[in-house]
Every structure is written in structure tokens, then in C-alpha cells.
């Protein structure tokens, strides 16, 4: 298969950047999107040009490192799929494919398609943990967890922190990510203890990072490779409301 790529090239964080066209030739249909980029990069290196910088790690859809906006949709528009798990057979031979980085003030572009997602780390550092005293390994099942709650917590914990929710949101809001991280711990007995403090600190950090606000468009949920539900945002709002009421009374 052959494609025309329009790729965002930007030397470094201070460069203004621009879209540049490349030809992707002799691509095998069963290659992943990232393997296709590898082939293009090999061609660029052979010609002595700077390869296209993009993020990837596991390439099996579990780490959340790959982060490409493909033809205007974060991760390319195949439901529940990261860019690394998207295959070229889903494209048409001869198609033009636009590739851009996540675009948000809180995710500055470092180079080409690579952004700095440190904002997510700082949000997790603000409250995405439970406080325990170290010591002997606790017994398994010492704290009983209901099946329904544990399933819900697992649904939230499926978030791989890729940032597609921010990339897709018209407001560059991180609420789906934060809601998943808050809910996953707030739902479990180990996390309930610090429920109010967690939701407050994480929302405060989210605001400080300069993300936008949710307007309930549902774009985040639609592009999320782990199909995290919008209902978690409602849950986070409720947790925040409860914390606010408790603090003000």
C-alpha cells in the first residue's frame, strides 16, 4: 500500500512547526500505524534526514505512550484502540493521512509528535495513591471488596493515561482522566479513607495545569482506547461536591 502523509514537524519546544508531506511507499497492510512510521523513518534516515519523532513503548495497547491524532481523531478513530494497535488495512490505498500531536496548553510539544504529558504525572502525584505504613505484606483478602464495586474500580483503573481524552475534547479538558484516577481509588475500601482529600487535590492540580472544563460533549469517551465511561466524570463531580459540602460545614 502507498500513502501520502501530512505530518507535524517541529524541531523543539520553541520552534513554530509546520505540516510536511511525505510519501509512505510499499507498506504492508498488516503493519501497525507505528510500524508504518518506522518504515518512513528508515527512508528518511537513509536519505540523511531527521526521522519523525513520535512516542511509543509497549506497542500492544497497554502503556498509553503512543499519542497520535490521525486524520483529526485521537488514536485514529477505531473504537477502543490505541494508535499502536491500529493497522494499515483500515486505511485506503493511496489515501492522504494527517498526523498531529496531542494539542493542549498543558501538553506542550517537545518535538514533532512528542508532547510532554508531565501534567498527568503531577495530577497523580497530587492524590492518585493511598497512604499505607510499610511493614509485612498484608494478607490477601484481609479487606473484603464487593464484586460490583471492584468491577467498577477495575473499569476506571483500565485508564492507561494516554491523554486522548484531552486531545479529543474541544476544551482540552482532562476530566475523564482525572475522574478515572479518582474513582478507581475512591471506590475501594483502601482508597475511601482519603476520598475527599484525593478528589480535591487532584481537581486542584488539574486546574493548575491549565486544562479546560468539561462541557459533556462525550468526545473523550468516544476516543478513549479503554472506553472509560463519562459516568466516571459524574461520579468525580459528586465526590467533589460531597468534599466541598463537608469542608464548608
Amino acid at each position, binding site marked *: 500500500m502507498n500513502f501520502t502523509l501530512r505530518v507535524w514537524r517541529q524541531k523543539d519546544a520553541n520552534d513554530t512547526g509546520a505540516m510536511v508531506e511525505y510519501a509512505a511507499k510499499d507498506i504492508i497492510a498488516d503493519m501497525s500505524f507505528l510500524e508504518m512510521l518506522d518504515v518512513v523513518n528508515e527512508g528518511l534516515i537513509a536519505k540523511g534526514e531527521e526521522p519523525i519523532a513520535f512516542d511509543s513503548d509497549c506497542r500492544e495497547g497497554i502503556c498509553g505512550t503512543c499519542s497520535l491524532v490521525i486524520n483529526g481523531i485521537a488514536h485514529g478513530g477505531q473504537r477502543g484502540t490505541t494508535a499502536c494497535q491500529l493497522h494499515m488495512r483500515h486505511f485506503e490505498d493511496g489515501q492522504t493521512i494527517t498526523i498531529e500531536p496531542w494539542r493542549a496548553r498543558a501538553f506542550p510539544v517537545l518535538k514533532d509528535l512528542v508532547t510532554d504529558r508531565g501534567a498527568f504525572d503531577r495530577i497523580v502525584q497530587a492524590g492518585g495513591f493511598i497512604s499505607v505504613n510499610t511493614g509485612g505484606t498484608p494478607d490477601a483478602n484481609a479487606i473484603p471488596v464487593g464484586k460490583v464495586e471492584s468491577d467498577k474500580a477495575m473499569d476506571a483503573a483500565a485508564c492507561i493515561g494516554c491523554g486522548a481524552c484531552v486531545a479529543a475534547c474541544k476544551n482540552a479538558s482532562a476530566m475523564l482522566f482525572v475522574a478515572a484516577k479518582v474513582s478507581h481509588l475512591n471506590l475501594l475500601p483502601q482508597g475511601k479513607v482519603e476520598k475527599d482529600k484525593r478528589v480535591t487535590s487532584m481537581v486542584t492540580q*488539574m486546574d493548575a495545569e491549565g486544562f479546560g*472544563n468539561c462541557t459533556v460533549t462525550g468526545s473523550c469517551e468516544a476516543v478513549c482506547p479503554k472506553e472509560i465511561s463519562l459516568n466516571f466524570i459524574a461520579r468525580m463531580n459528586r465526590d467533589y461536591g460531597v468534599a466541598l459540602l463537608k469542608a464548608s460545614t
Partner: protein
Amino acid sequence: MNITNLFRSSVGKKFIMAITGMALFLFVVLHLLGNLQIFLGPEAINRYGAFLQGNLELIWPARIGLLIIVGLHIWSAIKLAVENRAARPQPYAQQEIVAASYASRTMVWSGFIIAAFIIYHLLHFTVQVPAVNLTGKNFTTLEDAKNQHDVFRMMVIGFQSRVVTLFYIFAMWLLFLHLSHGVSAMFQSLGWKSPGYGSLIARFAVVASWLIFVGYISIPIAVQLGYGSSYVNSFNVNALQEVVK
């Protein structure tokens, strides 16, 4: 964390938006029920008008309350929208709309046009500025047989203007759009939602918005189709007879 987070944080401002939005939604429903009394005839709606105007200690607190609510709603709308714009300084070269409905993407615009409509509406039927009603009549001097303000005649004459009718219908259409998204967003913002009845809330939002739209536009449309014209004309005949005498 303290109560100032309500005004400073993202989620807090969404609470303000949602609570004031809910209050406005309830007002819109009550106002519609009041207005629909026009279909019970001149006597019913004129008595209702006289009742409201006769209880200043009720109507003024309600007006001031509504003004504060609208103020907070618009304040949080602008504040949140400005933050949203700032959150993506560099736009995408190509961006597809995924899942987001037209209504959800245009809330600020539908909101602002509704605000402009509210100002016009107040000048039209509350302050009754003759210049804006486009009929050349003065609404303040209309009286019925009981010497009450003739609200029925004011509404009928008001909506006999086709331009005014079209503007009202247009504004109500935007209110429909605003509420079809807003009412379900409100439950989401307040966290009054769980997976079980999420789809029920979305359906309630759309059905309620449709009912509000149909309810409001039924009045100008009925007038355009001739409702109330015989009542209005009976006054013109009386006036003519006075002149003849």
C-alpha cells in the same frame, strides 16, 4: 478546601452553572404554564397578570432572584469558556467532530442569543416600550372590561406582527437546543447520575425541551392563525362606535 472553591475550581463553576441552569429551567417551565392560560381566554390570563402585578412583595424578590441567577449563569459560562479557549492555544490542522452533538458545541452561542432575546422580551412585554413591538400600539394603556391591564390583548396584538413571531420562534428553537443538552449536562455536572438511569436522563432532557419548545411557540402560532383576533377587534368596533357617537 473551602466554599471559595465553588467559585474558583473547574468543577465548582460547573456546579454554579448547573444549579443556576436548573433554577432557570424550572422558571421556564412555570412561566410556560402561566402563559398557556392565554388559551383559557382573556379573563383567566388577565386575572393572572393582575395577580402578579398586585403582589409586588412577591414579584420583586422573584425578579431580583432571577437576575442574580442569570448573572451567575452567564458569569460562569463566560469564565469557563475563556478557560476552555485558553486550554488549546494551537488548533489542529485537521479535526473531526467525534460524538459531540451540535447543541453541545454551541452552548455559549445559543446562550448569548437567548440572553439577547430575554432583554428584548422584557422590553416588549414587561417594560412595554412601544418602539420595540413593531405594531405602532402602546401596550401600557390596554385595559379590559374590569379596568385591568389587558394582557390577552397585548399578547394577541404583539404576535400579530410576523417579524416578532418569527424572532420568538427562533429564540425558542435556540432554547430547545440549549436545554436538550443543558438538562442532561446538569445532572452530569452535579453527579446526580449513575449508569442505570443515564439514558433516561438524556431522554428526559430531550422530551422536556421539545415540550417547552412546542408549548411556547403554540402561542404566537395560534395568534398568527387568528386566535384572539375577534376579541381584539371587538375593542376596535367599540372604539369606532365611540367615534361615530
